[in-house]
C-alpha cells in the first residue's frame, strides 16, 4: 500500500515539474500559424482552382434527421449547383472539434463550416490560427477561452430566428387545441427541449408565446430530455407529458426528440417536428414541423465565398429571408389553423408580431 501511494506521489511530482510553464502554452502556436496557413484564396492569378468547402458536424452525427442532416444537405446542394468541392467529417466526441476543423484548415480549404453552438470555442481557436481561411458557424459566434464572444474577421456567425418558427407551429397547435380537433381533446400542449440553451429555448419561447396569444386557456407544459442523441430519454418525457393530458407534443431535441415523437405515435396523439421537415418520421402523427433552414444558411455561405461576397460577423436567417418557416401539414390540420399560421407568418414578416425569445413556462 505504501508503495502504491509512493508511485502516485511520483506521478504527481513529475507532473508538477511539467506544470511549471503552463501559463503561456497558446502564444507560440498562434505565432507559427500564419506560416502554416496556406493562402488558398489569395492566389487569383493561378489557374482557377476549385473552391473547397469542409463541413464539420457536431456529435449528433450526419443522421440526426435534423440539424446536421440539414447542414449536409446544404453542402450537397452547393456541390451540385455551384461546382464547388466539398467534404464532410463527423465529430464523434467533443474532443474532435478542434482537430477536425484544423485538418480542413491545414489542407487549405476555402471555407470551413462548424455545425452548432457546441463548437463556438473550437471555431474561435482554429479560426484565429488561420486568418486566411474563412469559417462559418451555425447558431453561434466565436467564443474565446473565457467564454466571451469575440468576433473574428474571417468568421461568419449564422443565427436563426427560432422563435419565429416556434411561433408559427404554436399558432397551429393552439388553434387545434382550442377547437379540440381530432385527438387533441385535453386543451393541453407540450414541448420538450434537449438542453436549456438559447437556440433550443427560443423555439419553445415562440411556441409558448403563440399559444398564450391564440388560446389563453390552453395548458402549457415544458420539459427537457437532457440529451440530443438518446431517443429513450425523449420517449420517457413524452409518455410523462401525455400522461398529464398533452395531446400536441413539440420536440426541440435533435435525435432525442425522435423518441418524443415515437411516444406521441404510440399513444395516438400529435407531434410537431423541428429543424427539418419531419413529416416522414411518423406521417399521421407529425402534424407539421418548425423549420430552421440550416441548409439555406450553409448554401448561402458557400455561395457567398464562391462569389467573393463573404461577410464576416453575425447574420440572422428569419421568416423574412425564408430562413425559418413551418413544414408540411398533416391532413388532420384544419384550414383555419393553416390560415392563422399564414397570417402570423405575414405579421412576423411585416413586424406586427415579434415573438418572445424568453420561455414563460419552464
Amino acid at each position, binding site marked *: 500500500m505504501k*508503495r502504491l501511494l509512493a508511485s502516485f506521489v511520483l506521478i504527481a511530482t513529475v507532473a508538477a515539474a511539467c506544470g511549471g*510553464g*503552463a501559463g503561456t502554452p497558446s502564444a507560440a502556436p498562434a505565432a507559427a500559424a500564419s506560416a502554416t496557413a496556406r493562402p488558398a484564396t489569395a492566389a487569383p492569378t493561378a489557374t482557377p482552382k476549385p473552391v473547397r468547402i469542409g463541413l464539420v458536424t457536431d456529435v449528433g452525427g450526419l443522421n440526426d434527421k435534423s440539424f446536421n442532416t440539414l447542414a449536409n444537405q446544404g453542402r450537397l446542394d452547393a456541390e451540385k449547383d455551384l461546382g464547388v468541392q466539398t467534404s464532410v467529417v463527423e465529430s464523434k466526441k467533443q474532443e474532435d472539434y478542434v482537430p477536425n476543423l484544423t485538418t480542413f484548415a491545414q489542407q487549405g480549404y476555402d471555407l470551413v463550416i462548424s455545425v452548432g453552438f457546441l463548437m463556438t470555442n473550437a471555431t474561435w481557436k482554429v479560426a484565429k490560427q488561420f486568418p486566411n481561411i474563412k469559417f462559418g458557424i451555425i447558431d453561434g459566434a466565436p467564443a474565446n477561452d473565457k467564454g466571451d464572444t469575440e468576433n473574428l474577421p474571417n468568421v461568419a456567425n449564422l443565427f436563426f430566428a427560432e422563435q419565429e418558427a416556434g411561433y408559427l407551429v404554436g399558432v397551429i397547435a393552439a388553434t387545434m387545441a382550442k377547437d379540440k380537433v381530432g385527438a387533441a381533446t385535453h386543451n393541453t400542449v407540450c414541448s420538450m427541449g434537449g438542453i436549456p440553451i438559447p437556440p433550443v429555448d427560443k423555439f419553445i419561447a415562440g411556441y409558448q408565446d403563440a399559444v398564450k396569444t391564440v388560446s389563453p386557456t390552453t395548458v402549457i407544459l415544458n420539459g427537457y430530455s437532457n440529451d440530443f442523441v438518446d431517443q429513450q430519454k425523449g420517449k420517457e418525457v413524452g409518455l410523462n407529458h401525455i400522461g398529464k393530458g398533452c395531446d400536441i407534443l413539440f420536440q426541440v431535441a435533435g435525435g432525442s426528440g425522435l423518441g418524443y415523437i415515437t411516444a406521441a405515435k404510440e399513444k395516438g396523439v400529435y407531434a410537431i417536428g423541428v429543424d427539418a421537415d419531419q413529416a416522414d418520421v411518423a406521417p399521421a402523427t407529425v402534424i407539421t414541423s418548425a423549420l430552421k433552414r440550416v441548409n439555406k444558411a450553409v448554401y448561402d455561405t458557400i455561395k457567398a465565398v464562391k462569389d467573393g461576397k463573404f461577410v464576416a460577423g453575425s447574420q440572422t436567417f428569419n421568416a423574412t429571408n425564408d430562413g425559418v418557416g413551418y413544414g408540411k401539414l398533416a391532413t388532420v390540420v384544419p384550414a383555419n389553423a393553416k390560415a392563422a399560421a399564414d397570417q402570423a407568418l405575414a405579421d412576423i414578416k411585416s413586424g406586427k408580431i415579434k415573438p418572445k425569445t424568453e420561455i414563460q413556462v419552464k
Partner: protein
Amino acid sequence: MTSGTSAGRTAPPTRRDALAWAAGPAIPAASVLIALVLGAAFVLVSGNDPVAAYAALARGAFGTPYDVTETLIIAIPLTLGGLSVALAFRTGLFNIGAQSQLLVGAIATGFVGVRFADLPGPLLMPLVILTGILAGGAWGALAGWLKATRGVNEVITTIMQNYTIVFVMHWLLQNGPMSAPNAFGTPASARIGDGAVLPVIVPAELIPLTRLHAGILLAALAVVAFWFILFRTTLGYELRAVGLGPRAAAQAGIDPKRGMVLGMFVAGGFAGLAGMVQVSGVFQRVYDGFSAGYGFDAIAVALLGKNSPIGIALAALLFGAFARGGTIMQSNAHISSNLVAVIEALVLFVIAAETALRELARRHGALKRAA
C-alpha cells in the same frame, strides 16, 4: 483439484507471465489483421476501394507529424482507461465503469482546478492529479466494496454508476453548482486555473498547432506504475492472487474482500487520471457529456492488449489511430468513419472467437484425458 495444481494457481507466476508477453503479441496482431481483411470486405461490398480506404486511414493517423500527435492525444485516455480495466481483470473483476470513473476524475479535477485556480502550478498540478486519481479510485472502490460486503455483481454496479454520473454531470453543469455563467452557452464548468493546465510539450516551431500535452508523460508513468504495482508490490501480489482464485488466496492468508476493494480503487484511480488528463490537457474545463465512450473503448483496448501494460499502450495507439484516421478517411476518401467502428468490433469479435476456440479445445482435451 490436487494440492499441487492449487499451489501452482495461487502463486502468481511472474516469469511465466513474462514469457506469455513474449508469445502474446501474435494473437492480438493476427486478430487485427483478420479484422482488417474482413473490414476490407465491408468496404468492397459498400462499393468503395479498400486500398484507398486504408491508405486514407493510415495517412490520417500518421501522415504528418500533426496527425501523429493527434493520434497520441486520443491514445492517452485510452491507455489509462485500458490500464483501469486490465487492473480490475487481474483482480478477477470486470470493470465496466471506467467511463464513470473517468468522469468522476474529470469532475474532481474541474472542481479543484476552479476552486483553487490561484494556486501556483507546482502546488496545484499535484493537487489536481491526486484528486483526479483519488476521486476515480473512490468511485471505483464503491463497486468493489459493494461486491465484497454485499456480494453485488460489479458488472451491474459499475454499469449503474455510469448512468448515475451522466445525470450528476447534467445536474452539476446545466445551471447547477459547477456551471459557469459564461461558457459559450453550453453546459460547462468555469476554466481551471493556469497552474492546473497540462502544457503542450512539443514546441510550435517543430509541429505547428499541435496540442500534444504533458498527459502523455502521465500515461507513460501510469504504464510503468501498472507493472510496478502489480508485479513489484505486496499489494499487486495480493490482487493477482485474488484474481487467480479468491478461495485459494484466502487459504494463503490473503483477504479477498480487501483485494476486491483495493483492486477497484487502483483501477478507478487509473480511469480517474484519464479524466484528469482530458480536463487539464485538452479542454481546461469540464463539459457536460464530454469524453463520451473512452471508458468503453478502454475495455476493448484492455482485451486487445491482453491486460499487459505494454500491450495496452500499443492497443490504445492502434485505437487512437483508428479514431483519428477514421475522420480523415471520411473527409478525404468519403468513406464513412463508421467503418472504423466496424473494424474495432471485428477485432473484438476475432479475439473473443479465439478465446472461445481455445476454451473449447481445452474442454475437449479434458474430456479425452478423462476418457
